[in-house]
């Protein structure tokens, strides 16, 4: 039997084809809502993919990963506000800012372990969050509108929804591919070895700190790029995009989809964000015959359904949805 033809790979293939065809569907039906939703999903899947690199493969539980969305996003917003519209300047600056910040956070936090690591990454993210809240010149906690998306040369025009979507989609695929190459390379072996047994890594001669730090910076940089896309997508940045609950969302995507798996974060991002949109509608639909008008109030509590779903996956599917799909193969 063909080893590629597994339930997991079939699901991934279907998802990728679906993602590739979203703009086509949207063009035919005029459904812009779906397009907007999936642009967001693709961008956040990229952020989750970058988190998976450190969380899943490296065992570094960063609870402040959304801060790079904010730094990448704010870099775009601030430059746009100050009259720098060219993407050739905006994007490299945003990416460099994310990388530098990751370097600073990583250099300090990677000297600690476990809960301390989680707390330090969270603390840095909160620091930047409140810094954003205090940025009066750039909208403080109301946020900042971006009147023009990043400018590139003709024929690239990010204001075109379809072009922008495919730009995000290609960058998502590129970051998944990059992650896959990295984790299977010599560098990736060191990262995974350090997750598994750092003490042994030192004993066999690896200075693991510098490798873990490099990995942390790569992840922050990719997430910063996702922030660049997110700011261009919403044409708006605010401190909310790096709130700690957003970091939590990214962790949920990774764990739900499957830690340390190539497509887990993508699966997790799609699952979480689609449920976020559909659960309220579903609850309203199911509850209306019983409680009438009160159903729309019930729909506000859609997270009551999402919570237990997440719990079930964590308890019974150790590799997340990806792990579940892979276990189908053995049965």
């Amino acid at each position, binding site marked *: 039997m063909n080893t590629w033809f597994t339930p997991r790979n079939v699901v991934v293939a279907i998802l990728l084809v679906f993602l590739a065809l979203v703009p086509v569907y949207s063009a035919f039906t005029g459904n812009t809502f779906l397009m907007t939703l999936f642009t967001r999903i693709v961008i956040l899947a990229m952020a989750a993919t970058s988190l998976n690199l450190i969380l899943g493969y490296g065992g570094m539980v960063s609870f402040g990963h959304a801060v790079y969305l904010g730094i990448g996003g704010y870099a775009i917003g601030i430059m746009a506000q100050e009259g720098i519209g060219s993407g050739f300047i905006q994007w490299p600056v945003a990416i460099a800012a994310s990388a530098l910040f990751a370097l600073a956070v990583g250099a300090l936090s990677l000297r600690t372990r476990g809960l301390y690591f989680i707390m330090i990454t969270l603390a840095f993210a909160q620091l930047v969050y409140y810094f954003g809240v205090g940025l009066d010149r750039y909208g403080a906690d109301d946020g900042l509108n971006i009147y023009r998306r990043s400018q590139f040369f003709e024929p690239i025009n990010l204001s075109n929804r379809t072009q922008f979507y495919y730009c995000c989609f290609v960058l998502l695929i590129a970051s998944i591919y990059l992650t896959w*190459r*990295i984790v*299977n*390379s*010599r*560098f*990736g*072996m*060191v990262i*995974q*070895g350090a997750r*598994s*047994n750092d*003490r*042994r*890594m*030192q*004993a*066999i*001669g*690896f*200075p*693991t700190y510098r*490798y873990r730090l*490099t990995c942390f910076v790569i992840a922050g940089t990719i997430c910063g790029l996702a922030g660049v896309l997110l700011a261009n997508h919403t044409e708006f940045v605010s401190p909310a995009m790096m709130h700690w609950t957003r970091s939590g969302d990214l962790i949920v995507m990774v764990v739900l989809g499957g830690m340390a798996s190539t497509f887990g974060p993508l699966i997790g991002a799609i699952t979480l964000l689609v449920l976020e949109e559909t659960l309220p509608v579903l609850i309203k639909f199911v509850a209306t015959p019983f409680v009438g008008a009160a159903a729309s109030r019930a729909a506000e509590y859609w997270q009551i359904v999402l919570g237990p779903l997440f719990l079930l996956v964590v308890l019974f599917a150790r590799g997340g949805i990806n792990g579940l799909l892979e276990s189908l193969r053995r049965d």
Partner: protein
Amino acid sequence: MTDALLTIDGLAKRFGGVTASDGIDLAVSAGELHAIIGPNGAGKTTLIGQLTGEIVPDAGRIQFDGQDITALPAHQRSQRGLARSFQITSLFNDFTALDNVALAVQAHSGHSFHFWRDARSDAALRTPARETLARVGLAGRENVIVSSMSHGEHRQLEIAMALATRPRMLLLDEPMAGMGPEESVRMIALLRELKRDLTILLIEHDMDAVFALADRISVLVYGRVIASGEPAAIRANAEVRKAYLGEQESSGGHHG
């Protein structure tokens, strides 16, 4: 006597009120197998920890190959050719046996800032790793995930991990811990073979193994070396017998 490869001078380490190393002096000559014996709590593992760089001594000096390594971190000692095995198996449990050893090979094949090529199909890592596995008797177990291997196999893999770093000296912390009689016999045969190429510092409770293998033995009691010498001399040393060997020797029928 040939030159000492490893020299320890006045090594001291205290944990709160417990003195784990109380001015240890020791010299291990190049090419010898030097065994350290001593009752539980004598400070043997603390000594290994200080030699490998995991524990920072309060005082004293460690020299390896004529250079002071007292302040070097663990990974740099490994790079200089000092390898260790762990008393409590310490492997990469979610990797295969081959992945484990290949990682040890990789640690000594230049830096690992290579982000693109697949490490698992890299012959420069895989071939030496396979050879090392075969050397410790794990040929054919290459693709088994470590967590599903037996205890005896874990002990063999421990040795393979140390060997794969192509060391000049091995620090073996109770390589026979928890092994059955048959496995022990195989391990003794393996160590006897390794002894031909490497300097070995062996910490071991199995007295049959120690007396079968050691060129010299040092006896550690309460963090002090109370005797050091050839096996016959140690066997005859009254202080050693009183402190440690007494019971074991009488049951072994060597009572004189």
